[in-house]
């Protein structure tokens, strides 16, 4: 998914569909993950299992596999992150519909200075970049 397309994704979610490139991007994530599982599940050096073939214990092979796994993780993260971030913003926007007017109607509460409080709170609740992913 290209940078800057998160608002487009939000519009598409609102409209109840995904564009073809977005659907393809999700397919790429699945493909990358399947490859990741193949690499990490099929190679003793990455698994940490006792190697049956001495080639897996060669330092250059172990290093190359670790690099490959790291690169795959990075690719998955890069591809899926915009989707997760947009989804979080999309859901937060709905929560943020507790704005002054309908909030007063729904709960019959005192909402003086609400606009200021709300804007501060909204900053607090903005999506922090999902740096915790893949840890």
């Amino acid at each position, binding site marked *: 998914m290209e940078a800057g397309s998160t608002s487009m994704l939000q519009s*598409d*979610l*609102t409209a*109840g*569909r*995904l564009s073809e490139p977005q*659907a393809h991007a*999700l*397919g790429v*994530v*699945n493909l990358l*993950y*399947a490859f990741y*599982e193949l690499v990490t599940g099929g190679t003793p050096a990455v698994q940490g299992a006792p190697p049956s073939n001495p080639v897996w214990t060669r330092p250059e092979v172990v290093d190359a596999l670790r690099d490959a796994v790291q690169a795959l993780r990075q690719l*998955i993260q890069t591809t*899926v992150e915009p*989707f*997760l971030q947009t*989804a*979080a913003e*999309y*859901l*937060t*926007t*709905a*929560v*943020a*519909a*507790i704005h002054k007017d*309908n*909030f007063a*109607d*729904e*709960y*019959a*509460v*005192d*909402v003086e200075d*609400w606009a200021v*409080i*709300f804007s501060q*709170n909204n900053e*607090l*609740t903005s*999506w922090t970049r*999902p740096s*915790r*992913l*893949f840890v």
Partner: protein
Amino acid sequence: MVDANGPSAEPPVSRYLRDLQTRVAAVHTFILSRLQCGTDQRAWSQQLAAHTLVAFVRHLSLIRRPSEAGKLQLAADMAQMELMLAPLLGAAGTSLSVLGAPYRALRAFRYAAAAAGTSANSKRH
């Protein structure tokens, strides 16, 4: 608020929660259900649910002096929030209780909104 189904013991969920419900369903249908990424997918679902809960509780915590009707509405919305997120997490093989602090905050807020509000109002008046 007018209930299209007539009077009932439980207040209907509010407009914004209905909107949120639609959006949660969209995220589930168009993003999460299309991913097949094992335990990573579970973690992503948990992060999204936790983020939604935290934002929800923070906004609710700004309510001041809710009326009795407002308290009932709050309780209904918080209960609906749980019902709404449960399928999203269930599809990823996890549950609300796994979220830890965000979920405990929601549960605690339900009691606080019902109980503490009463004593605060009685002190104020």
